[in-house]
């Protein structure tokens, strides 16, 4: 493991294989929570926190609990349970230790259990054969990519709110079209060689 491989994971996960625009994970909150920039920032932070933690814990569980005993087939069940428990735990911990942070992130936390980006990243980490450090870095950068996409779309949607668009396109459809154009912009990164 070198600095180069870490760097390529970071750039790859944030820009080239952006979790939303290239892999289509976490689309529900992407459309649902991207109406206001501050809400999407909160969601982004909550997701970053949970994905990084979940990546680490699922990696440990898989390599020290499931794989040695030949229980790989329990992967899906084990991971979703870990994520659900983790989200619950994080919610309680934040509520106890930092009420102000809880106020900012609280509403988003329960939504995260069903955010497929969390489970998706956990599975990808195992599939790619990352080691522990790479897993943490990948989880963190995927989440940063998610937050970036969310905030970008929220910025666009805040502006679109006040422009004259054809009535049938108001609301969700124009959000999808904007996301499509953003995805096109992100395709530009796919030519990058690291």
């Amino acid at each position, binding site marked *: 493991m070198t600095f180069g491989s870490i760097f390529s994971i970071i750039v790859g996960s944030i820009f080239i294989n952006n979790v939303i*625009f*290239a*892999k*289509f*994970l*976490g*689309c*529900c909150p*992407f*459309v*649902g929570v991207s109406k206001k920039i501050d809400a999407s920032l909160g969601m982004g932070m909550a997701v970053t926190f949970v994905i990084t933690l979940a990546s680490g814990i699922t990696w440990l569980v898989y390599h020290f609990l499931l794989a040695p005993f030949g229980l790989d*087939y*329990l*992967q*899906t*069940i084990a991971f*979703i*349970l870990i994520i*659900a428990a983790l989200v619950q735990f994080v919610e309680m911990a934040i509520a106890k230790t930092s009420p102000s942070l809880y106020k900012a992130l609280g509403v988003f936390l329960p939504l995260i*259990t*069903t*955010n*497929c980006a*969390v*489970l*998706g990243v956990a*599975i*990808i980490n195992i*599939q790619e054969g990352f080691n522990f450090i790479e897993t943490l870095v990948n989880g963190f950068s995927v989440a940063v990519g998610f937050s970036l996409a969310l905030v970008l779309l929220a910025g666009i949607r805040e502006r679109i709110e006040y422009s004259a668009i*054809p*009535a*049938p*396109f*108001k609301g*969700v*459809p*124009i*959000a*999808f*079209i904007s*996301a*499509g*154009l953003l*995805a*096109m912009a*992100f*395709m530009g990164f796919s030519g990058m060689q690291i």
Partner: protein
Amino acid sequence: MEKNNYGKILFEGIFTGNPVFILLLGLCPTLGVTSSAINGMSMGLAVVAVLACSNALISAFKKLIPDQVRIPAFIMIIASLVTIVEMVMKAYTPDLYKVLGLFIPLIVVNCIVLGRAESFASKNGVFASLVDGVGTGLGFTLSLTVLGAIREVLGNGSIFNIKFAPAGFTPALIFILAPGAFLTIGCIIATLNYLKMKKSKEG
């Protein structure tokens, strides 16, 4: 829920309460696997299998599951079913399994499945829940197939893997790439909105 209303439950799941285009649930697989009509349809059918079984099982066990832990219990049931579907697909349709890949285990976190469990199966009888699962699943399948077909026609000049476009036709590759998914679903929802507006104006 009245009895013998299964036709209505089925219809509601497929059209008026279509999970994808009307309720906007389960968007990730919708956008992720619909690069062709076949892929969309097979993903949809996998969801039908999970949804019908999970609805029926949850409805059968609803009296045994304490209210406080019902969500984790539902997730456990769904995750077990998804694991079964995953293993079956790996064994019998390995090519398909490779294409759909990550999105098979991700059926667990598909909001449609948990949503139907919570809003329908935990309140209704076993058979009605089964019908609701099949209906909602078919609605999901229909949306994925339509989306996949449109993208395949525009992006590849074929439908269900059958080439029909004349030799001079250059397909717009963008439609089977990532941005095409967003553009197509945006246009479909806008069209549905337009039809709805027209209808409410007339009526």
